[in-house]
């Protein structure tokens, strides 16, 4: 069925080229990602103090996620609303985590009945 939208700018023809965004250097991104993986493995191998290790590992994980989302999923070329949607998802998870935090991990273990 041909579409009668003329010039409202929406891309509705299914076979139209969707390559409206730029392309980063994918290979370089891959190298970064593998290097990040190396860092988290190194952290594991060298038995750093637990707190530091966990911090590094999670910073690296978020960094990797950022690299994949921004480059492979082309979020860096995307409309602002898409950014809002993705960050809203993260924000909502954070709210959930913080709201439940006092009730699950912080529950004093000793209140469990001692029979």
């Amino acid at each position, binding site marked *: 069925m041909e579409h009668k939208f003329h010039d409202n700018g929406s891309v509705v023809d299914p076979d139209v080229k969707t390559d409206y965004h730029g392309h980063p250097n994918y290979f370089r991104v891959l190298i970064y990602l593998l290097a990040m993986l190396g860092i988290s493995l190194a952290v594991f191998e060298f038995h750093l103090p637990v707190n530091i290790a966990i911090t590094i590992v999670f910073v690296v994980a978020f960094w990797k996620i950022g690299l994949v989302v921004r480059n492979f999923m082309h979020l860096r070329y995307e409309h602002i609303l898409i950014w809002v949607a993705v960050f809203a998802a993260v924000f909502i998870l954070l709210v959930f985590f913080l709201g439940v935090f006092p009730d699950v991990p912080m*529950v004093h*273990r000793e*209140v*469990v*009945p*001692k*029979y």
Partner: protein
Amino acid sequence: MNIFPENATTYGQEIDNLFYLILTFVAIAFVISVVVLFYPMFRYSEKRNPKAQYITGEKKSHFKWVMYALIMLAMSDFIIMYAEHGTWEKIEEDVPTDGIRVGITGIQWNWVFNYAGKDGKVMTADDIVINEANSELHVPINTNIIMELRARDVVHDVFLPNARTKYDVIPGRTHVKWANFTKVGKYEVVCSQICGVLHSKMRNYIVVDTKEDYDKYMAALYAKQDSANAPKPAAPAIDTTAKADSTKAADKK
């Protein structure tokens, strides 16, 4: 006719007063809203006002009326919050430490009452356990009753209408709540959270005695426990099932 059932605790009246406070605000808001909603239905009906005005409401001079109402609502909201917070703190956060400790454990479908045994602590092996249908928990008047609330199988909810208190009991947790009864009488303890087939039949009593009656009742209970325990070693107060064991094991870590 009383709106609430008979009040029997020190903080019960506060809850009732809170209701009347909120009712005042709500009644005012209700009357205003009803006027705002129904007056235009008469004044601006098709017959009386055949030509409507063009008001988009985006102008500040129009929208300010909504703003006033919202500010009023917000203010009354926060007055209510301020007024009730003290009651909440008193009931939920500041549990007194001195008083008589009793254990109330929800099982399908009964409340099990634990009196402290000789050691003065509940949930130990020498507790006096009452696990019968329609059983009574005797407590003295004008004393802080500190209730350790537990559940053994599913989620229940201790509801004492006359004490104006209620709390869920969750397997794996202990909630410590309190009440101070001011009237002698026999009050219901019901389960207010659906807990299975016979949820509707889960009802026991709290009996508030004078101090003398309570002492007499307890003395009789201790005597009975002694005679029951004399020939054989003390039986565990609560059956230590595999579930309880594993919780305990988890606990030590």
